[in-house]
């Protein structure tokens, strides 16, 4: 793992046991402005730290010792979620099918056209970028939610389930005005501009909205 990987920038990991092809891929991707990390084996990849930014894996289906498919399975066991673009040679159709079934983003038959390679890598990086953005948003939301008091959380959940302030007050055994204050606090802390935002956030956080309010009308 090279030290000169800029944090946050996209990184393409190349895992191929062929040193020459590895260097060629690194050079081509480098000429297009991608950062690359070249590894000779799956083990070498696992030993390197994953960067913070979006990344993807360019993986040879046939590796010395363990095959690319084994490595894909190993990543799954380790819960390393990384878009994989497989590179295949002649007569590897069964392996390619297995790879795609196991969740590979794309595959390239060697020797590949450069545009196909660049497109596949760009698509894989975009997918990882999206995945990372949504993961980051979820993290932020959870952090904000963690900043609420227990009472605010309770009232946020009940409000998101569609109960009127009066109903909530009755439900939790307090005055309507207190409910209003907690509700306003929750919206401010959660950075929800509208009530609809708050409802979406509650859903994204997985609050059990429906259970709090035995179904009366359709949610937004």
């Amino acid at each position, binding site marked *: 793992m090279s030290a000169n990987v800029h944090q946050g920038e996209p990184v393409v990991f190349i895992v191929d046991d062929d040193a020459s092809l590895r260097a060629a891929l690194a*050079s081509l991707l*480098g000429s297009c402005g991608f950062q690359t990390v070249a590894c000779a084996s799956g083990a070498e990849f696992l030993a390197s730290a994953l960067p913070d930014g979006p990344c993807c894996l360019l993986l040879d289906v046939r590796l010395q*010792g363990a*095959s690319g498919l084994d490595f894909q399975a190993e990543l799954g066991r380790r819960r390393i979620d990384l878009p994989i673009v497989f*590179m295949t040679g002649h007569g590897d159709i069964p392996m390619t099918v297995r790879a795609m079934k196991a969740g590979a983003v794309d595959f390239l038959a060697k020797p590949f056209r450069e545009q196909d390679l660049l497109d596949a890598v760009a698509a894989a990086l975009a997918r990882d970028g999206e995945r990372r953005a949504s993961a980051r948003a979820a993290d932020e939301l959870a952090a904000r939610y963690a900043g609420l008091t227990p009472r605010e959380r309770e009232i946020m959940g009940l409000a998101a389930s569609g109960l009127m302030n009066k109903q909530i007050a009755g439900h939790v055994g307090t005055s309507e005005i207190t409910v209003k204050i907690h509700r306003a606090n929750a919206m401010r802390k959660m950075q929800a501009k509208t009530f609809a935002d708050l409802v979406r956030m509650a859903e994204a956080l997985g609050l059990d909205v429906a259970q709090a309010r035995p179904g009366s009308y359709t949610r937004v």
Partner: protein
Amino acid sequence: MFQSPGSNLRAAGVVLLTLAIFAVDAFTALDIAIAVLYVVVVLCATSVWSRRGVLLTGVACATLTVGAFALTHHDVVSSPMARCLVSVAAIAITTVLALAGMAATDALRQRSESLRLSEAFLASTQRISRTSSFRFQAPGGAMHWSEEAARIYGVGLDVTPTPALVRERTHPDDLALLDDVIARADRGEAAIELRHRLRMPDGAVKHVHMIARLAADHDGRFEYLGALMDVSAAHEAAETLHRTQAQLAHATRVTTLGELAASIAHEVNQPLAAVATNGNACLRWLNRPEPDLLEARLALDRILADTCRASEVIKRIRALARKGEAQRLPLDVNLLLRDTAALVQRELSNHRIVLELHLAPGLPPVEGDAVQLQQVVINLLMNAMQAIDGAAADWLRRQQRIVLSTRLDGGQVEIEVADSGPGLSELQAGRLFEAFYTTKADGMGMGLAICRSIVEAHGGSIRAVAHAGPGATLAFALPCAAPTAKDAADAVTGAPA
């Protein structure tokens, strides 16, 4: 004995002579021992009748002598009586001597007859076995040879062999061999041997084998006796066998290549992919607003290296698919094994098998055909691979290994292929190298049989090694090449091979 027309005439002459002597003896009064002339009759009889006839003639002559005496003389003690006795004695002695002479002649005739028979016998045997005998003197080369030798050399039976004739018939490429043998004979070596070719005036080539031994040494003049065999037929048969074996080996080699096709395609594809990718990268580095010449140059360097690599792979495959005469060249076994390992590495790794090379350094060269020996090694490796595969078809089984090792064992280089497969039973180990014997469901049983024929053609041996623990080990040994002067010098200085 002999019933020729002349013998009847002679018999009549003998009878007439006998009657004439009897008439003179009995009816004239000559006072001499006429009867002694019967001796002539007996002697003549030897050339007319057999021994029995001569004996009868002798008895008849003696009887006639006594009869003539009885007719003309009556007194017992007298000089005619004495003459009669002298005559009878002379006839008896002549008869005995004539009979003895005839017996000796018969024996001689019989001996010469049997000699003639044995000569004819020898000549026909020589002809059938295409083996001739000869005698020659060295130095000088005065020669004598049997009829078959003349036939082998393609000259008339009456032609006297000379060293010039022998030279003229010897194949031009083998003259040096002939000269060497002549030089050895001139030194009086006890035994000389030569396998060489003759070229007939019509261009036909004969393969002959000559063996000669020193028979006598007359103060520096050596006399050799020897045999010369026409081994063309045997040579031809060996050549045909060799060609057939080579064809079979080639066929199986191509089959093996077919089995390796996917791996080989990958081996070729890999550098091609690298070349294409490097080419694209190079263009992109050059097409930048500020061209990056260093990166472009690096990409070009890699392109060149990959081109070499692709052509190396193709060269190896072409060599293996080559259909040509087997060669005998000094080979570095370790280098050969590394090349071979490169060909099958990919296939083995696809089967999750790790190939380990344990090569003893500094092995002496062996003499042989690189392609054929490579074939043996590939066959053994593929065999080991299939043995492992058969044991565990499971895709995710633990890693298996094959160890390919070399070592020097006396005057031989031993090459061993050990696998971690299920191993062999003793029965299997014993029959492994037989043609059409296979332990595989879809095997032909030719691979290892061909390995054996190749190894044996190289003067080596192949075997399955029994050992404790799992896995099978197949090993073959090849004799080291005869050391050249240079090798000997290397050995003295301890320089690595």
